[in-house]
């Protein structure tokens, strides 16, 4: 599923990593790293919490609800933050909906 930039992401989509992109926990590198073709990303704490939930099981809406509840943050703001991250990863072919 592709989205024109700027449009809201469908909240019933289930974000997941495409094949060839893996989230691994590396003790030697001090935590979670996202591995992709010729790239390594070290997510910050917030991005890591989002990425951990993008397994293809939970919908975007469910991920946002859970994060908002866990961190006591306004849902709208969480949705905006998660959408920004996902959109940037989708553009880099590091996430699929």
């Amino acid at each position, binding site marked *: 599923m*592709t989205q024109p*930039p700027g449009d809201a992401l469908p909240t019933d989509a289930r974000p997941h990593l*495409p*094949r*060839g*992109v*893996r989230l*691994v926990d*590396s003790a*030697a*590198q001090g935590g979670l*790293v996202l*591995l992709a*073709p*010729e790239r*390594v990303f070290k997510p910050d704490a917030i991005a890591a919490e989002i990425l951990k939930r993008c397994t293809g099981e939970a919908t975007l809406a469910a991920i946002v609800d859970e994060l908002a509840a866990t961190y006591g943050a306004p849902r709208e703001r969480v949705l905006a933050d998660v959408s920004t991250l996902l959109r940037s990863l*989708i*553009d*880099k*072919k590091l996430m699929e909906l």
Partner: protein
Amino acid sequence: MDATSPTLLRPLGLLAELTHRCPLGCPYCSNPVALEARADELDTATWARVFAEAAGLGVLQVHLSGGEPAARRDLLEITAAARQAGLYTNLITSAVGLSAERLAGLAQAGLDHVQISIQDSEAASADRIAGYEGAFVRKRALAAAVVQQGLPLTVNAVVHRANIDRIGEMVDQAVALGASRVEIAHVQYYGWAIPNRAMLMPTPEQVERAREHVDELRGRHHGIIVIDAVVPDYYARYPKPCVGGWGRRSLNVTPSGKVLPCHAAESIPGLEFWSVREHSVADIWRHSPAFNAFRGTDWMEEPCASCPRRFEDFGGCRCQAFALLRDARATDPVCHLSPHHGLLSELAGERREAAYVYRRHTPTPAHATAQGDRD
């Protein structure tokens, strides 16, 4: 510098040159001109140990390369060992000598990604550049098989004077093949590219057009394919941060087991390289003289030594400084602040139409054997 130094980082990537054997003869091959022999190649078990040690040290990704890695009969076992060590496993292949059946086995063994190089968008020209009749057709077939397996594909389009005007066609082909990423890889002048420099060097006008072309392609293919491209060295104002800094983020293991900070490091005389046959990967990373030779910034001369960019580009490429200035400590002359920067436009101007010097595998074995090298 020693293991306790705060500037010693953990490596992220390991380039495993499984063999220097390759059916192609690309005149810009990054392998050293003195190729290593089959008889000296590491065996399967040693590669498995290297991967496990590298993963323990912090390496996250391994690039199975060569030569042509498929020339190794044990590529399946090697791939499985890399994945079992927990490494993200990337196969860098010419596609010649790798069947769709063998690829399916590699995918099953846990291969994460495949990169296929292409020489041009036109078959006859591509085969002429590769020095191999039929290479173009085989590359397309394997690319299709990669996509069919569901594996992500990167197309590496190596560009130079003979094909740089067809970047658009090459990107279009990569899109049509189903690649998720394409690298516009300007030839870098190391290894076999040095004797071929005058035949490969693009004109300044071509480089400028290529730059505009890539911008336009990125806009057109946004979200469809990721396009990676950098300004070619001889036309740049600042040097590339070669291998992300010497002994900083990556290491390279040669077919015979020597561990190098970068694939061209053996071109610098006087460096002492250690082998995985005698040392662990962690020991080599921390203590081998070659890795410590240009680590950090203490070795730098001016203008690098006081430059605010020294932590970004690390003085550029040591091998290039040596190749062009015979001084591995000098500022990479790609930098416009180097007093020798003018040399690059001079060399780039030395273009000549002549036959390529094709890369051919006729190595002298380190240990003379009766078997020699038959592939």
